[in-house]
């Protein structure tokens, strides 16, 4: 059973990656609302305010200033209102210690940032078409 993803939040301090992601996302499905946050603190502030609609999926970069992705993930999973939002870690690093930690703290998957735009489009399409983000969810958000 697939559930339509309407809103995605990308937390990434890298402006280029934000832009590429936005373009790839609109190429995949231009009806999806794309939201951006630029570090962990920024993401938590936006998630806890009414500034943006609650996302159906969060892409979370690992290496970021102010608050990194792993700490942000911990905060999200601690929050009663946010804990059910599926989080995909999204990083250039495939360092196994990070990935292990991310899964321990409840990330749904760990995606290494593709080094090619075409691959990025494919990856995003795959994620949007899979059941994966919602397998642990009982109710659509």
């Amino acid at each position, binding site marked *: 059973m697939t559930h339509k993803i309407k809103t995605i939040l990308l937390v990434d301090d890298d402006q280029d990656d934000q832009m*590429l992601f936005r373009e790839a996302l609109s190429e995949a499905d231009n009806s999806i609302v794309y939201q951006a946050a630029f570090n962990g603190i920024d993401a938590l502030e936006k998630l806890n305010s009414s500034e943006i609609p609650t996302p159906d999926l969060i892409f979370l970069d690992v290496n970021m200033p102010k608050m990194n992705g792993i700490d942000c993930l911990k905060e999200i999973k601690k929050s009663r209102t946010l804990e059910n939002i599926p989080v995909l870690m999204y990083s*250039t690093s495939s360092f196994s210690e990070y990935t292990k930690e991310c899964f321990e703290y409840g990330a749904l998957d760990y995606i290494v940032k593709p080094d*090619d*735009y075409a691959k990025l489009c494919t990856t995003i399409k795959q994620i949007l078409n899979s059941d994966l983000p919602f397998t642990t969810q009982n109710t659509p958000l």
Partner: protein
Amino acid sequence: MILIVDDIKANIVALKKILEIHNLECDAASSGEDALKKILKTDYSLIIMDVQMPGMDGFEVAEILAGGNRTKDIPVIFLSAINKEKKYISRGYESGGVDYITKPVDPDLLILKVKTFLKLYEQQNELKNIRDLLSKEIEIRKEAQENLELKVMERTKELLVKNEELELRNHELQQFSWVVSHDLKEPLRKIEIFIKLIKDNYLKEDPKALDYVNRTVNAAARMNKLITDLLEYSRLSSNVVPEDTDLNLILTEVLSDFDHLTEEKNASIKIETIPRIKGIPSQLRQLFQNLVGNSLKFSKAGVNPEIEITSELVEEKDFGSTVSTTGNFCRITVKDNGIGFDEKYLSKVFIIFQSLNDRNAYEGTGIGLAIAKKIVEKHNGLITAKSQVGVGSSFIILLPLSQN
């Protein structure tokens, strides 16, 4: 020198004569007090003393001598004409005398006794000297030992501090190279992504621009590979616990990674059974990946690559060591029929960034063999190569079966 103590001069003269006939040197004192004065000044080896004397008697003199450190070992023979009773004789021994002789005296027996006591005294002195020497020697050794221990302790402490410093430096360096490699990769990834976007979206109609961009893409890819290899190299320094490793399994995996290239180059690869060793699987995989990869990479144009991996147990950590089924080292040889290299460059091939070959003909970052060497060294092993230009290369690895 013998001291004769007697208040009667005639006795002294008589005794002196007897002793001097036998070449025994004598001195004389006419009273106890006189005797003590003389003993203070001169070292006598025997005292023959009358018992009854005006003033201080012989027993008293003997008792004083027994109390002095320097004098307590001088043998005293009492010689008496009057006090012959048992109680005097007992007193004589009690006061420290070695003998008690009563008159009349047989001169021959007296000389025998005197000589015996002189000899005993001499021997005692010798023993004492040896004992003194020994205790001095012990003292010196003890001191040296203590000094040594102190020095060792100081050195150990210094070394521990140095070691800690080195570990910290090493860690910092690792961290540094990791961060550098990582941060270098980030902008490069962007260059690769955007240049490919430009290529795919805007340059389809312009062959010249396409060529330039392709060259840029290739250069970026090469740099990416270089950074990946550097990252790998810097990561090798971290400490990992060795585990039971099946090298056959690792080689099978490595070969399957090269499936495509093997097929493309129509290569044949033969592998002998290799024993299990204690090692770090991921590093050993990297080692064989680099060696087999090199053999495939540096193949001769138009010749099907033939790679042979052989293994044998040897006794010692030496490339020339004799084969032994009970040996504790494993000698693995990766042999190919590739382009080979001049052995005068042997010392260079294992050094980072020392690629011997023309980069246009053979791609390589010059890190592969440096990584291989570092991995082998991390496993307390050795690596070398034999090669001949145009004939092929053999890379020989010596790995211990267990890590202590």
